[in-house]
């Protein structure tokens, strides 16, 4: 008995002793280690006596963690890319309102393009800007004799069949914003046509956003849809890859927020101020971080030819954030149930369509040609059909029911699945028939 209590009190001592640091700032972040290590070092040397403690989690896990620990928060700062994570936490009341000093905020514009940089209610603040684009593996493309892509619409072309990779928008806040950008840029109907066609060309749909640059860097797939710093930092580290911003793209801020009830409120505020001030912003230019600062004046001091989202018209899309966040859950689930989970059927349908089109192009008989073509057109329509009405996706009642436990979600998902399966099967059937005709 005595031995046991001695042991347990020794344990207790060890555990408590290990946490008696001078002033800690605990940060939950999904950023890669190059970024947080640089900031940790810089912040600690500027404010000696403070230790930065990093709790690295994927965005989803980070949100879950904050929700589960809300009774007694342990983290001071939440620091990720995806605006929707911040929206979710704000709606749950888990973020602290803060007003940074005026001199700091004065140097940062209110918007980038149409996207507000900071939250209107002061619960989270943009500290870096990111755009979305296409990253490709040079070795892979040259070995497979493919040209580099330029626009989102390129993703729908037959020559890229099986060579693309993307991560599911439900698993990656940044990919979700890319999908929304496409939907808003091309409209709901045409947007889904493009997404379904591109979906059929995808070799794989990964479940974490870093799966995409990983697949491209290792040469497993040729072209991936990524956030800019993945591409830029990979290039900087000597990997044989390249990156481009399509002309229709969206730039959104990566943000930082203070957790409500943070144990070290002062430290948290200091950290936020640091991120938004010049020394913190200059760190973003480092090649292994490769992000875009929110202070326009800083670009003059940065590296030459660095992308400047305030000067070059990198936008092109009037991004409607309200619309995006309102229908976010439905769009994510829709994508999953008609593309991610039905990927094999979708791929098969598009393979059949491309084959039929190739056969139709080669065939000489004009009458058969026409019939084949019309069959293929019909198949294309089915394989790229927008699976849901746009108005319904934003309908407040439906959204609420979808997020609740009523079973509406299961019902809608089943509908989408069944429709998708039927469509793709029919499309394949028609395409095969057309290919048979065109022989």
């Amino acid at each position, binding site marked *: 008995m005595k031995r046991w209590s001695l042991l*347990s*009190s020794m*344990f*207790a001592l060890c*555990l*408590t002793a*290990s*946490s008696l640091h001078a002033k800690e700032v*605990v940060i939950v972040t999904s950023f*890669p*280690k*190059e970024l947080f290590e640089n900031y940790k070092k810089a912040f600690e040397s500027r404010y000696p006596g403070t230790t930065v*403690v990093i*709790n*690295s*989690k994927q965005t*989803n*896990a980070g949100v*879950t963690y904050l929700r*589960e*620990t809300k*009774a*007694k928060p*342990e983290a001071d700062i939440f620091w990720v890319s995806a605006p*929707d994570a911040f929206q*979710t936490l704000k709606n749950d009341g888990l973020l602290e309102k803060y007003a940074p000093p005026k001199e700091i905020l004065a140097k940062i514009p209110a918007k980038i393009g149409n996207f507000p940089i900071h939250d209107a209610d002061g619960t989270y603040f943009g500290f870096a800007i990111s755009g979305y684009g296409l990253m490709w*593996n040079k*070795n*892979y493309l040259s070995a497979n004799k493919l040209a580099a892509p330029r626009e989102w619409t390129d993703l729908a072309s037959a020559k890229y069949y099986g060579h693309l990779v993307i991560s599911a928008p*439900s*698993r990656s806040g940044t990919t979700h914003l890319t999908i929304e950008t496409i939907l808003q840029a091309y409209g709901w109907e045409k947007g889904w046509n493009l997404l379904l066609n591109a979906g059929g060309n995808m*070799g*794989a*749909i990964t*479940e974490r956003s870093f*799966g995409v640059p990983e697949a491209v*860097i*290792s*040469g*497993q*797939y040729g072209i991936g849809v990524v956030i800019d710093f*993945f591409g830029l*930092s990979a290039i900087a*580290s000597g*990997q*044989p*890859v390249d990156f481009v911003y399509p002309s229709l793209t969206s730039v959104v801020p990566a943000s930082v927020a203070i957790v409500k009830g943070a144990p070290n409120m002062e430290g948290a505020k200091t950290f936020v101020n640091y991120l938004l001030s010049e020394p913190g912003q200059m760190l973003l230019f480092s090649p*292994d971080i490769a992000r875009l600062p929110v202070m326009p004046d800083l670009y003059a001091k940065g590296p030459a030819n660095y992308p400047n989202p305030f000067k070059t018209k990198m936008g092109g899309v009037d991004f409607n954030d309200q619309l995006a966040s309102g229908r*976010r*859950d439905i769009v994510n689930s829709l994508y999953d*149930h008609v593309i*991610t*989970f039905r990927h094999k059927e979708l791929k098969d349908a598009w393979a059949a369509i491309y084959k039929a089109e190739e056969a139709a192009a080669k065939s000489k008989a004009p009458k058969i040609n026409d019939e084949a073509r019309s069959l293929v057109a019909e198949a294309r329509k089915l394989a790229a059909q927008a699976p849901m009405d746009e108005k319904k996706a934003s309908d407040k009642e439906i959204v609420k029911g*979808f997020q609740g*436990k009523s079973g509406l*979600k*299961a019902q809608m*998902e*089943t509908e989408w*699945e069944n429709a998708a399966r039927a469509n793709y099967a029919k499309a394949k059937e028609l395409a095969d028939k057309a290919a048979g005709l065109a022989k």
Partner: protein
Amino acid sequence: MATTEAAPALRLREKIDWLQGALMAALLVLLFVFVLYPVARVLWVALADENSRFTLIHFQNFFLRPLFREALWNSLWSGFLVVIFGSFLAVPLAYVIARYDFRGKVLLQTLATLPLVVPPFVGAVAFQQILGRSGAVNLLLMRWFDFSIPFMDGLTGVVLVQTLHFFPFIMLNTAVSLSNIDASLEEMAQSMGCHGLRLFRRVTLPLMLPGFIAGSLLTFIRAIDDLGTPLMLNYKNLLAPQAYLRITTIGIDDVDGYVICVVLVFLSLASLLAARKYLGLAEYATVQGGRDASRRIAGKKLFFVLLFSALALAAALLPHAGIFLLSLSKVWSYSVLPTKFTLDNYTEILFRVPHFIKNTLLYAGLAAGFDVILGAAIAFLLLRSRLWGRNLLDALATLPLAVPGVVLAVGYIRVFHGWDFPGVGKPLTSTWFVLVIVYAARRLPYTVRACYAALQQVHVSLEESAQNLGANRLRTFLRVTLPLIGGGLVAGGLIAFVTSCVELSSTIMLVTRIEYGPISYGIYIYMQSPLGRAAGAALGVVAIVMVGIGTYLTHRIFGARAGSAFRV
């Protein structure tokens, strides 16, 4: 005669009941607090409706959804295929290990256990670099023969990877079963004119069947619960990934994720119960005891045996080779081998961030230690007492095998967060100790099984004789029982240690600061950046080496009995 026997027996029973009862109660409380309650807190969502009342409607909906029916079918079918193909590899290797003796046999046993240890994330990357569509093998095939084999595509890829990953379970169980067969049974058959294949089919096979089936069922459970492989191959139409994806999506409380977890737990427990039925038969062979039936081989026979083993193991150890190459690489992109090599990765992980390795040794070591003590206590109660609650104890101690890591982790956060654990001064989930607890909980089933199997081979009369001669219970345990079951204890402890080294799913949720992270967490951190994959691979190599050394020592010291740790 009767009186002298009855008197000591009565004395023993009285004393034992009191202390055994206390031990049983303590263990039940421990398992309730650290296993059953956290799991129940999480899975309750699947059984409650909007008004928090008990309902089975979610399960009804599960079976009505084509996606889930498909996932269920795929999981069962792929699990079955993994067992079939795994057996082709495992049974011959088991026969080689159990029946033949040759130089390098211990090395073979060690290498054959390594496929179980594939570090998360880097294992996946290494697989893709070697067997992926643009991996080394396919690049060579395309260059020489102009075609490629879709090893990693869809369900085929999942079955392939899982077969190579889990076959050692079947092999080890079958080897133990084979080596426990009394040699005299086979000699008798041979003396009656039964030889070769007929001997195998009529005598050996039935006797080894129980161990084989136990191993197969364990493989089946691990295969259907496996999350890492389907995620790595981006194949999501299986139960485990569907559960994981739905539970870890932000913004919505997806009930279906929890329903799938309950279905998985149910399938695993059902398989466990079926395996236990056959385990009863397996003990029949062990009680006979018997001489070691292995014989020395050399020459042509040895050559073929080694050739077969080498081929089988080469396939299974491809990812390990890939991880090793990756750890030495700077650039490996769409080429058969890395184009730039470096030792920087090892410098990084060994000197700049050695805490990952140190933490793993600490956590896994402590967890294994606790598991050995608990496993021995539980096995003792299961085999030597007649208390009520033994079946409950057994079920609770085995339950963690069927629970996904993320469920247990979220359960711990729900149960232990927000209040200061007595004697610690802050919530349990803010400490590194919670990782030790979760590893101990998740690996307890293995040590219980190992201790159980070891204790079964010690006849109770040995202990009773000692007590008859005046030794008290504690002295009997220390001087008689412990030395006899020592092999099983150490084997169980080593398995717990080895499998804790690469535990990932609970670790990610429960690590609250990087300094507390073990190797698997370190790999996760490194795998988030373009340059990090090589350093992550270096950490993976360290984990594999640690496991390799541990396994080698076990087999060296305890021979074929080390396999009893994997029995169900």
